[in-house]
């Protein structure tokens, strides 16, 4: 049966390893820090597997419905008898799925890093940060309380910041770390306000209670929050949209995506773990967690989610086609795929067949985590081999690094949605859900799917084909067993994951949902993907002038995409021009002249007074004596004539 002790160990083991490596690693455990971190992750991954097995096959289903099970909870901060911030662990289908994904990918990344980070000076710091991240992410997905989720949400943001800035002697890494932290922190402000609005009206912070109170039609809490309005929208809409702003910041949705491409300054395994597979899907996870409230009480907020996701997925795919940095292409493709998950949630309804989008979204989250981690780890192996991120420095690597080549190809086929790889199944479900509920978004998704195939295979052909390298230009090989093992294992998962009957385990209402692949429906997306692949093949398999010609034909569009549609510049304008120039200048003026001025006034008054008073101190003993005499005499007079 499910036992609180070992489920609590799943997040606590990485915490223990963080403390151990973080406190003692630098001095005593430098060589051992990697193995310690990996071992703790191995244990917690095993525990997660056991938990998942028990939950899905034994304890989780009550009368055919997957229940939310609170295995463990204690009040951490009690505000009033009804409102408290709890620390707890909740098992439900999505959190169980997430602990599986997080521990698995983290384990793979740990193993990979053993070899990738070898010889690094601060290797123990690196592994302690990785452990901290894993702990925080597990705490986030298992959270029983929305405030607990917020705490861990900030913790993953912190560990992401620390790991992006791991090479802190590189100015670009420092700038990227700051950018990631500030942008997500800015979005988290929305998250916090959303939490406050929702919990103020629902009078609880506990997830289960909060969701049931706000999604039951006609409940007093729901009435109170929907009748209160602000600027024409009900507070429920505001709360949910602000919550989503936090999620959009973390999940790099347009227009808060600007931090994600820069976050690639961190070590590549970190990008695989944090900025591809786990942390960036926290936004999707959060919307999925609150899904009943979104779907049942406020479809308007769900529309916002859907369109933000759709726009982000198209936008990122357009940019990814022209970038020349291998990790940046992957970053934009991550953003695009998360956009898929978001709009899948957005078009979904609650319960039964309508909930297909929900299932599809989390299915895609699952498969995407696997193949995107694989892509990043493969990219890491390529970068390790050629010592550069630039596509122009690569080419013809297929014979030099065969294992990386095959696994990378598997991942590319998966993300392009070619059957029978895992990405095909999840993407088909998403397309099906959007086809049923929102036709414009379906069209965007189809186009994006074609683009995805194109840019992924542009990457693939540019790395592994294009030009022929001389056979012995590089002395060292592909990387050791520790680097190849995760690649092979993840490739196998990517091959197999699509066949998991996902709807049986995860659906919006906990009831099993059967979904089958409709061959006729799948024809168009698959054909589009193949088109994309063949186009990439024609462009990039051999060195040719076609890409340049296409760029000239597309002209402005190409330039705009290459410059990432100047979103960074727009944000710079907003921050530098408006925030610093107008708001900041006014605030500085207010601070300098009003607040500082008031204090200065007090100080100068004291100065004037003391300047006058100090003249009394002459240093001559007889003056003092005269004063004493005057005092005594006046006291005498006072006692004689007044007091008597």
């Amino acid at each position, binding site marked *: 049966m499910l036992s609180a002790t070992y489920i609590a160990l799943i997040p606590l083991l990485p915490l223990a390893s963080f403390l151990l490596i973080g406190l003692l690693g630098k001095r005593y455990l430098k060589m051992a820090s990697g193995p310690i971190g990996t071992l703790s992750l191995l244990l917690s991954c095993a525990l997660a597997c056991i938990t998942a097995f028990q939950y899905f096959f034994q304890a989780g289903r009550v009368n055919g419905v997957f229940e939310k099970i609170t295995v463990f909870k204690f009040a951490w901060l009690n505000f009033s008898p009804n409102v408290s911030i709890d620390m707890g662990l909740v098992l439900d289908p999505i959190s169980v799925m997430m602990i599986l994904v997080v521990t698995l990918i983290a384990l793979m990344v740990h193993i990979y890093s053993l070899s990738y980070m070898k010889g690094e000076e601060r290797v123990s710091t690196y592994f302690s940060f990785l452990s901290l991240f894993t702990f925080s992410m597990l705490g986030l997905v298992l959270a029983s309380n929305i405030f607990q989720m917020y705490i861990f949400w900030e913790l993953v943001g912190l560990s992401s910041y620390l790991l992006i800035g791991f090479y802190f002697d590189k100015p670009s890494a420092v700038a990227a770390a700051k950018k990631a932290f500030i942008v997500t922190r800015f979005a988290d402000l929305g998250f916090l306000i959303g939490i406050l609005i929702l919990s103020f009206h629902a009078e609880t912070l506990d997830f289960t209670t909060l969701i049931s109170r706000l999604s039951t039609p006609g409940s007093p809490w729901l009435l109170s929050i929907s009748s209160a309005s602000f600027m024409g929208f009900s507070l429920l809409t505001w709360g949910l949209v602000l919550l989503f702003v936090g999620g959009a910041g973390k999940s790099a949705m347009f227009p808060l995506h600007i931090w994600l491409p820069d976050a690639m300054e961190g070590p590549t395994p970190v990008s695989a773990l944090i900025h591809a597979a786990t942390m960036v899907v926290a936004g999707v996870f959060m919307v999925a967690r609150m899904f009943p409230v979104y779907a049942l009480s406020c479809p308007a907020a769900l529309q916002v989610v859907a369109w933000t996701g759709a726009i982000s997925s198209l936008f990122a795919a357009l940019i990814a086609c022209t970038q020349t940095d291998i990790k940046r292409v992957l970053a934009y493709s991550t953003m695009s795929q998360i956009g898929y998950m978001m709009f899948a949630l957005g078009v979904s309804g609650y319960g039964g067949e309508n909930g297909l989008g929900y299932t599809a979204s989390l299915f895609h989250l699952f498969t995407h985590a696997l193949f995107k981690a694989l892509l990043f780890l493969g990219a890491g192996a390529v970068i390790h081999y050629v010592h550069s991120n630039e596509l122009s420095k690569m080419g013809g690597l297929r014979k030099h690094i065969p294992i990386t080549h095959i696994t990378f190809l598997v991942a590319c086929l998966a993300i392009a949605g070619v059957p029978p790889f895992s990405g095909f199944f999840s993407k088909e479900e998403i397309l099906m859900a959007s086809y049923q509920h929102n036709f414009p978004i379906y069209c965007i998704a189809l186009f994006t799917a074609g683009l995805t195939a194109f840019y992924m295979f542009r990457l693939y052909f540019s790395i592994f084909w294009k030009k022929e390298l001389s056979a012995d230009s590089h002395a060292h090989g592909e990387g050791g067993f520790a680097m190849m093992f995760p690649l092979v294992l993840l490739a196998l998962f990517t091959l197999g994951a699509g066949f998991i009957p996902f709807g049986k385990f995860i659906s919006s209402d906990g009831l099993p949902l059967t979904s089958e692949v409709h061959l006729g429906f799948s024809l168009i997306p698959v054909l589009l993907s193949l088109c994309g692949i063949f186009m990439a093949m024609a462009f990039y398999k051999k060195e040719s002038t076609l890409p340049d010609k296409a760029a000239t034909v597309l002209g402005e569009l190409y330039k705009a995409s290459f410059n990432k549609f100047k979103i960074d510049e727009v944000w710079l304008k907003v921050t530098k021009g408006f925030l610093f120039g107008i708001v900041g200048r006014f605030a500085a003026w207010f601070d300098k002249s009003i607040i500082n001025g008031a204090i200065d006034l007090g100080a100068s008054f004291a100065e004037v007074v003391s300047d006058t008073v100090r003249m009394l*101190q*002459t*240093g*001559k003993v*007889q003056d003092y*004596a*005269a004063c004493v*005499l005057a005092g005594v005499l006046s006291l005498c007079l006072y006692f004689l004539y007044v007091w008597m």
Partner: protein
Amino acid sequence: MNAIPLQHILLVSTGLFFIGIYGFLTRRNLITMLMSIELTLNSVNINFVAFNRYLYPTKQDGLFFVIFVISIAAAEAAVAIAIIINLYRKYKTIDAEGADTMRF
């Protein structure tokens, strides 16, 4: 016995007191100032003796106080002269105006 009334004696002591104060405030020579302090102390002594004699003839507390004040004054003179010598060593003068560095 009561040839001299109390008021006369008090007048003498008051006069003595203010002569001492006047001297203390106007003289710049530290030795003279010390002497002026002795005058004020002695005026107090006269008061003690006079009150003791006229108000409580059977008691002797006033006399004890006078002895006490005289001995304190002697000790005080010793300390004051030591201070004056030190001041002289530092400023080469025993003028009170010269020692005015204890100021803002």
